[in-house]
């Protein structure tokens, strides 16, 4: 995984948190937000989790699938935050 710039990782953490909240609210913007987060995270920590979450939400909605996507968003956000903290050390 490429060493991220702090700003990139922060942006991923922010977008994935927004996407997770949208999924919790069942807001239709969740899919586009997640797609944006996955694009921003491509090649960065959290990228594979967010890419899988983005693919999941493209499937027809289902509670279990939505919850799995939420969990993947959380994993992606945490990985991005860990990268930010690592860079700040």
């Amino acid at each position, binding site marked *: 995984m490429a060493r991220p710039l702090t700003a990139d990782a922060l942006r991923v953490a922010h977008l994935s948190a927004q996407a997770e909240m949208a999924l919790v609210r069942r807001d239709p913007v969740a899919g586009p937000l997640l797609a944006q987060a996955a694009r921003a995270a491509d090649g960065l920590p959290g990228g594979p989790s967010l890419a*899988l979450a983005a693919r999941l939400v493209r499937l027809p909605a289902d509670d279990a699938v939505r*919850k*799995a996507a939420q969990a993947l968003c959380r994993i992606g956000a945490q990985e991005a935050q860990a990268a930010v903290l690592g860079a700040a050390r």
Partner: protein
Amino acid sequence: MSEATRARLARVLERAVPDLAEANLCIAAEAYPGLSVDAQMGRVDALADEARMLGGGAGGVVRALRQAGLRGDREEYDDPRNSFLNEVLDRRLGLPIALAALSVAVAGRVGVPFAGVGMPGHYVVADLSGPDPRYLDAFDGWAPLGPEDLARRVRETAGMALRDEHLRPAGARETVVRMLANLEAAYVRRRRPADALWTVELALVCEPGDAAAREREVTLLTALGRYAEAAAAAGRQLEDLAPGAARDRAQAQVDAIEELQWRMN
């Protein structure tokens, strides 16, 4: 899922001239577990006998298919049954690609060189028995298609201009993968991920190295909550990747699914 029909599908595609009817029926056996592929192939053989009785050649093939009442399903285009030859032969309705595959299979039995042509958005048949290919639309009663008709169909179904390469005969593997892609999309639209999954698994039987299909397999297994299998499927990608960024990403996906499994249980 039947390992026997999956192995049979792989064997069919290895042949020099794969039988598209047999390949299609191996797919159908996934959706209809009790289906006898051999018995259904007998129905295709019977159509070929009819084509011979009707004069043989391309004309006999087309007459036999028309006389059987086969036609395109314009009402429920997306119905998965339109993809399976057993259902096509029962209901006399099908998708362009299923009707074209049946045409190629019947023609092959009669010794007439038909080939499938996978144009963008629409699948047609090429009769290669003359000096120049003659194109037929199986979905539209095997209507002959001139250059303008072909261009119109591509424009209307795919929104693009027809190019010469769109008219090249499709290989059997390519045709089977396209059939499976149609089915996968139909099952996803119907919220049937378990059925979508077997279509992807069959696509991987056809093209074991297809990274996009492997990705869809991982996604569908995750959607079905089968996390351990999703992680294993994602892990299979690792075997093909040399150390580097792509392998790191694939490993990170395996880790993410394992983490997901832990969180969801």
